[in-house]
């Protein structure tokens, strides 16, 4: 009897040991499933999980371990709730990396309060505030979305190329709006343009006639709106159009939404804007993958989400470890040249190359090229509104 007990104990232990080897690697996905950007996060999450399931189908990571995605809500605006969610993923779920967060404010909060103290790698697909470039991150923070410092420059160039040299600017009063307007204004003034007034607006307010009045009085050839299409940005544009203050608008990426054009109709024709974009083999391959998986790749930041999840997995494989302290250095290596180029749908192949000691250059859905402290260089789509739709002008 004693022997039998010993034997069963031993076999349980052995089984436990084997189990540990096959334990899935948990990947935390922290996005604002509720809150201001709740309409775009489901597709972002699906994209990240698509990368994980692709790896699992190809046989997993690090000698056959599976990737398991666990999700948590960042709320986009509530730093305390987002911090608590990240804390929970690390302490009770035992994740090995974070794909997220989404909005710049909560991303900064999670980074400072949770990721850096716990030594956890974070790759954000959509936090674009220039402030995050300078954040104290101990090399744990990366982003597959470009910083708005670049977007401001692109927007300034678009206006300058069209001969518009005097504009009024209004931005949504948060980290994103503030950062984008700062970068836009400094690039625009450097290029010789004049900003007549830079006024913030609060989202969700009842009335914007005060802002529209001040902007109209300051004047300019165009109104630059750096806000959200379903929030204050819409209210400001509607007020400016109705009162005849402006008839030409230049818009940041938060305003890229078909519903805006449907609401405002033909009066938006001729307005311009920029939105992070990518084209080429990578985004086409990604579109094919999402079509197979049954969701829409055309909404914002889906490509960046896929790339963020894929980069975490590939870096783990390249460094042979799931410890964030070990694999954080491998992220830049797998993302950038030299090595064999990897497109979406080729993650299995990439893991094979890394297993054999080869080198890869992850191209992904957004032509990932990490620069500086680990952020995407980024390409933007310049569009002009024609007949109630966004028409592509060029990729910048």
């Amino acid at each position, binding site marked *: 009897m004693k022997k039998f007990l010993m034997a069963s104990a031993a076999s349980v232990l052995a089984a436990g040991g084997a189990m540990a080897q096959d334990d899935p690697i948990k990947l935390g996905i922290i996005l604002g499933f509720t809150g201001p950007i709740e309409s775009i996060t489901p597709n972002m999450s699906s994209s990240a999980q698509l990368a994980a399931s692709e790896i699992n189908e190809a046989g997993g990571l690090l000698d056959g371990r599976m990737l398991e995605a666990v999700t948590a809500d960042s709320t986009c605006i509530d730093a305390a709730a987002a911090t608590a969610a990240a804390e929970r993923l690390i302490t009770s779920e035992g994740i090995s990396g974070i794909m997220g967060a989404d909005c710049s404010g909560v991303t900064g909060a999670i980074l400072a309060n949770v990721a850096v103290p716990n030594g956890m790698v974070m790759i954000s697909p959509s936090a674009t505030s220039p402030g995050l470039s300078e954040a104290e991150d101990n090399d744990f923070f990366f982003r597959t979305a470009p910083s708005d410092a670049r977007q401001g420059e692109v927007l300034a160039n678009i206006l300058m190329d069209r001969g518009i040299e005097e504009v009024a600017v209004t931005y949504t009063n948060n980290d994103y709006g503030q950062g984008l307007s700062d970068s836009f204004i400094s690039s625009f003034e450097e290029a010789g343009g004049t900003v007549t007034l830079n006024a913030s607006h609060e989202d969700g307010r009842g*009335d914007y*006639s*005060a802002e529209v009045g001040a902007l109209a*009085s300051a004047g300019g050839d165009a109104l630059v709106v750096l806000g959200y299409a379903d929030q204050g940005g819409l209210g400001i544009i509607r007020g400016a159009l109705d*009162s005849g203050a402006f008839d030409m608008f230049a818009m940041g990426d938060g305003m890229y939404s078909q519903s805006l054009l449907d609401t405002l109709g033909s009066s938006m024709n001729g307005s311009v804007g920029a939105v992070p974009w990518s084209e080429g083999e990578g985004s086409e391959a990604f579109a094919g993958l999402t079509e197979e998986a049954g969701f829409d790749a055309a909404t914002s930041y889906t490509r960046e989400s896929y790339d963020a999840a894929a980069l975490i997995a590939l870096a783990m494989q390249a460094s042979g470890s799931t410890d964030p302290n070990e694999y954080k250095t491998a992220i830049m290596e797998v993302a950038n040249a030299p090595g064999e180029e990897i497109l979406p749908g080729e993650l299995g192949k990439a893991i094979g190359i890394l297993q054999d000691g080869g080198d890869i250059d992850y191209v992904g859905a957004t032509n990932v090229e990490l620069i500086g402290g680990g952020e995407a260089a980024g390409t933007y789509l310049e569009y002009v509104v024609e007949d109630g739709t966004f028409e592509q002008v060029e990729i910048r």
Partner: protein
Amino acid sequence: MDFLNGFVALLNFVVIPATAYGAQLALGALGVTLIYGILRFSNFAHGDTMAFGAMATILVTWAFQSMGLHLWGLPTALLALPFGIVVAALLVLGTDRVVYRFYRRHKVSPVILVIVSMGVMFVYNGLVRFVIGPDDQNFADGARFLINARDFREMTGLDEGLAFRTSQAMTIITAVIVVAILFWFLNRTRTGKSMRAFSDNEDLALLSGINPERVVAITWIIVAALATVAGVLYGLDKSFKPFTYFQLLLPIFAAAIVGGLGSPVGAIVGGFVVAFSEVTITYAWKKVLEYWLPAALEPEGLVQLLSTDYKFAVSFAILVIVLLFRPTGLFKGKSV
């Protein structure tokens, strides 16, 4: 000519928008002030009552639109308004029956009723989102402009355009009509007089044979009507989004308190004071002054007293100043 241009610019960017906004706030503040005067508590659920009434009206409007009913140049929502009012009245009467009556019977202190109304606010909040969702809803139809900026410029040959939206005109006209009816009702009818008596001295009113439940029910019906009208006009003029109605609560209360809680005239004046102070103090006067002043005196800067960031600070500063010097508000309401 220059004088006219400056005048038109002022009208277009300050006077018209502020008047329309003021009328919307005044209608909202009237509802708040009536509840305060007769039921003696600050009703925090008022913003969401507006949202609920507007939502009910929107649903009926959509039904009418799909049936092909329309009011020629005017929005179909006007036709649906009475139905919205009925639905909103049923909701507030039901709430009074199951929630407020209990506390009234126990003669609880007003501060408890305020907290209770907050609870009701959250329930309405959820109800509206549950039925129609948190997104923007478009229900305006009919002609958008009475005068459009471009046409005005061509018509008059002035440099400045003047835009006057149908919804702004409707807001102002409706506000005048509703206020006139309300004052006639309160001052001339038997029921109105009994409401005022109840508001002035509850015990004396009871002794005179006034039925309190009837007064309360009529108050709620009037408040539901005011809230629905305000909510629909606001939705037509700007847009219907449940969250903005919740935000409107702040300026509405500021308006009611500046005017004097419990005083209907005060609510109307307060609405316009808040709206005009928000728009004029943060307005950049450069454009107007350029037209009005001789070239030598033309301003270099924007001539903006305060940046628009401070527009809410302005209405609250006015609130504080008024309360410092007249604790009962401009029109002698009840002290808070």
